[in-house]
C-alpha cells in the first residue's frame, strides 16, 4: 500500500474510526487486525505467512526463555538461538543474491565457467525493520531492560504495527509497550495536529520528491543523451529526492500514529543543515543509527577482542593513535553493516557504507590539520560564511556517495561519474535544453518555490515544533496555511504517468 495512495487514506480512516468506537479493552486488537491487513496486503501466500509466524513465534518463545533463565548461562544460548532464527530469515530472504553475486565474481576470477542464476524471494513488507526490531526485543530482555510479552497476539502487534512497516522508524519495546496496549481516548486537537503532519508529508513526496524524481530518473535512465550538467544536477537532486520521500513517508507515518495516539521516535532532524558527515548521520535515519549504536557498535567496542586490540595498539602506536585503531575498525564494521542493511547489493555497501566510513574517517583525522591551516591563514571558522561552506561541502559529499545508492550497478555508477566530466554548460542558458530532462520551466519554478518552503519550515523547526507554532496562530491564518498546503498538493502534486491532474491544471496558466 503506497502511503500517498487513496487506498491507504481509506485504510487509515477506517482503522482510526473503528479503533475509537470499539470498547477500549479491545482497541489494540483493531490495530493488530489493521496491521495484519497491511502486512499481507497483496502478498498473502503460504511462504509469507510462514515467515511472519516463524519470526513471531521464535521471538515469543526465546524471549520468555531468556527471561526465565535470567542469571543463567542458558539465557545467552536462547538469545543467540532467537537472533539466529530471525537473522536466518532476513539473510535468506534479502541477501541470497548478494552471496550469489559474490560467488559468481569469485568464479569469474578463478576462470570457472559456471554462474549461479539469481533467485527471487517473496518477502513481506518491512522485513528489514521488524526483524531488527525483534532482535532488539530479545536483546533488551537479555539485558534486563524489558520484560517479555506474555500474550503472543500483543507481541504480534508490536512486531507488525502497520505505520512502521513501510519505512520505520525503529521502535523499542520499552517505548511501545504502554502505548500499544493502553486504552486510548479520541483527541480532536491531536487529530488536527496529526493530519497537518500527514499533509506535510504528502506535500514533500508528491510536490517535491516525485518532481525531482522525474529529472533524476530521466538522466539516470539515459546516460548517452544526458550527461555533463544534466548529470551534475541529477546527482545534486537525488539526495533531496530521497530525503523528501523518506522523511515525507515518516511524516505520514508519524502523523497517522499521532492520530491513533501512539508516539513514535523522530527519525530526522533537519540533516541538510549538518556541517560534517558525522553530524549528518546523527540527523539522518536517527533510529537506525541508535539501533546500531546500542546493539552493535557499543558491544563491539566493549568486546574483549577490541579491548585487547586497544591495549596492543596503545603499546605499539602510543596512547592517542593506538586507541583510534579499534575505534576505526568497529566503525568500518558498522558502516559495512549499514550498507548491507540498505540493500543486498554492492552499490549500497559502497554508497551507504564504505564511502560514509571514508568520509567520517577523513573528517576525524584531518580535523586537526584543517584547524591548523585555518589558524595559519587567519580563516574564522565560527562565521556564517564558513558554516555555509561546511554545509554545502557536506551536501556535495553525500550527493557523491548517493550516486552508488541510486545506480543499478557499480559499472553504472562509474559511467555516471564519467558523465560528470562532459562539458556542456550551454544547457543551463540556452532556454530549451534543461527542460528536456523530464521537467519543464513550470516544474522548475514549482520546485524552487517548494524547496524554499521546505527549508523555511525546517529552519523554523530549529526553535521548536512548527505545528505547535501554527496552532498558536489565529484561526484565519491557521486555515489559510492548511488550505494552501492542501491546494498545493492537489495542484502541484505529481501523481505519476497517466494520472496527472497537476499537469492539466497548472499548465493552463
Amino acid at each position, binding site marked *: 500500500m503506497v502511503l500517498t495512495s487513496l487506498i491507504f487514506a481509506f485504510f487509515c480512516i477506517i482503522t482510526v474510526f473503528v479503533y475509537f468506537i470499539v470498547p477500549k479493552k479491545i482497541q489494540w486488537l483493531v490495530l493488530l487486525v489493521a496491521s495484519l491487513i497491511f502486512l499481507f496486503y497483496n502478498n498473502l501466500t503460504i511462504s509469507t505467512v510462514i515467515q511472519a509466524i516463524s519470526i513471531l513465534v521464535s521471538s515469543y518463545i526465546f524471549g520468555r526463555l531468556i527471561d526465565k533463565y535470567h542469571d543463567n548461562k542458558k539465557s545467552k544460548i536462547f538469545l543467540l538461538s532467537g537472533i539466529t532464527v530471525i537473522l536466518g530469515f532476513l539473510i535468506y530472504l534479502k541477501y541470497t543474491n548478494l552471496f550469489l553475486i559474490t560467488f559468481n565474481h569469485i568464479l569469474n576470477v578463478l576462470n570457472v565457467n559456471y554462474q549461479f542464476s539469481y533467485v527471487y524471494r517473496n518477502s513481506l513488507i518491512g522485513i528489514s525493520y521488524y526483524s531488527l526490531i525483534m532482535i532488539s526485543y530479545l*536483546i*533488551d530482555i537479555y*539485558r*534486563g*531492560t524489558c520484560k517479555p510479552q506474555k500474550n503472543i497476539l500483543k507481541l504480534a502487534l508490536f512486531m507488525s504495527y502497520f505505520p512502521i512497516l513501510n519505512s520505520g522508524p525503529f521502535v523499542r519495546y520499552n517505548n511501545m509497550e504502554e502505548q500499544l496496549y493502553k486504552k486510548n481516548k479520541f483527541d480532536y486537537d491531536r487529530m488536527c495536529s496529526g493530519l497537518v503532519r500527514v499533509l506535510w508529508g504528502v506535500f514533500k513526496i508528491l510536490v517535491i520528491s516525485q518532481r525531482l524524481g522525474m529529472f533524476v530518473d530521466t538522466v539516470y535512465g539515459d546516460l548517452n543523451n544526458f550527461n555533463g550538467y544534466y548529470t551534475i544536477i541529477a546527482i545534486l537532486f537525488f539526495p533531496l529526492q530521497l530525503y523528501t520521500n523518506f522523511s515525507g513517508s515518516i511524516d505520514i507515518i508519524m502523523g497517522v500514529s499521532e492520530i491513533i495516539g501512539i508516539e513514535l521516535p523522530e527519525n530526522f532532524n533537519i540533516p541538510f543543515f549538518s556541517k560534517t558527515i558525522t553530524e549528518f548521520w546523527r540527523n539522518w535515519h536517527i533510529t537506525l543509527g541508535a539501533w546500531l*549504536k*546500542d546493539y552493535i557498535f*557499543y*558491544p563491539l*567496542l*566493549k568486546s574483549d577482542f577490541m*579491548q585487547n586490540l*586497544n591495549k596492543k595498539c596503545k603499546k605499539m602506536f602510543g*596512547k592517542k593513535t593506538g*586507541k583510534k585503531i579499534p*575505534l576505526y575498525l568497529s566503525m568500518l564494521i558498522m558502516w559495512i553493516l549499514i550498507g548491507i542493511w540498505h540493500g543486498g547489493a554492492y552499490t549500497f555497501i559502497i554508497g551507504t557504507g564504505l564511502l560514509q566510513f571514508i568520509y567520517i574517517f577523513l573528517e576525524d583525522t584531518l580535523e586537526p590539520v584543517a584547524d591548523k591551516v585555518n589558524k595559519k591563514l587567519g580563516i574564522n571558522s565560527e562565521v556564517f560564511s564558513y558554516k555555509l561552506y561546511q554545509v554545502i561541502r557536506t551536501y556535495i559529499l553525500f550527493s557523491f556517495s548517493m550516486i552508488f545508492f541510486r545506480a543499478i550497478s557499480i559499472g553504472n555508477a562509474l559511467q555516471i561519474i564519467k558523465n560528470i566530466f562532459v562539458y556542456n554548460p550551454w544547457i543551463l542558458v540556452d532556454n530549451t535544453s534543461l527542460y528536456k530532462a523530464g521537467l519543464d520551466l513550470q516544474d522548475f519554478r514549482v520546485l524552487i518555490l517548494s524547496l524554499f518552503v521546505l527549508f523555511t519550515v525546517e529552519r523554523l523547526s530549529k526553535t521548536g515544533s512548527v505545528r505547535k507554532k501554527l496552532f498558536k496562530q489565529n484561526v484565519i491564518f491557521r486555515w489559510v496555511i492548511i488550505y494552501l498546503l492542501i491546494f498545493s498538493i492537489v495542484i502541484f502534486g505529481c501523481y505519476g504517468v497517466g494520472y496527472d491532474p497537476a499537469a492539466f491544471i497548472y499548465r493552463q496558466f
Partner: protein
Amino acid sequence: MEKEEIYERLNNVFRDIFDDESITVNENTTSNDIEDWDSLEHINLVVAVENEFGIKFNMNEVTTMKNVGEMVDIILSRMN
C-alpha cells in the same frame, strides 16, 4: 568499600583515560565537564572502570548512566 575510596580510584581511572592529571570527579560530574568525554571515550572509560573494580556494567547501564554519581551507585551495588 567506602564511597571516598571509590572516588579516589575513579579519579585515577579518569586521569589515565583522559590524559589529564587535574581531573577530580564528584557525583555531579558529567560528560559536559570533561572535554574529551564523548560517546566513544565513554566505552573505554566504562571498560577501564570495570577492570579497576572487577565488575561488569550491563549495556543498559552503560548507555543510561547520567553522571559519575550513578556510576558510583552501580559500583557500590555490585561490590556489596
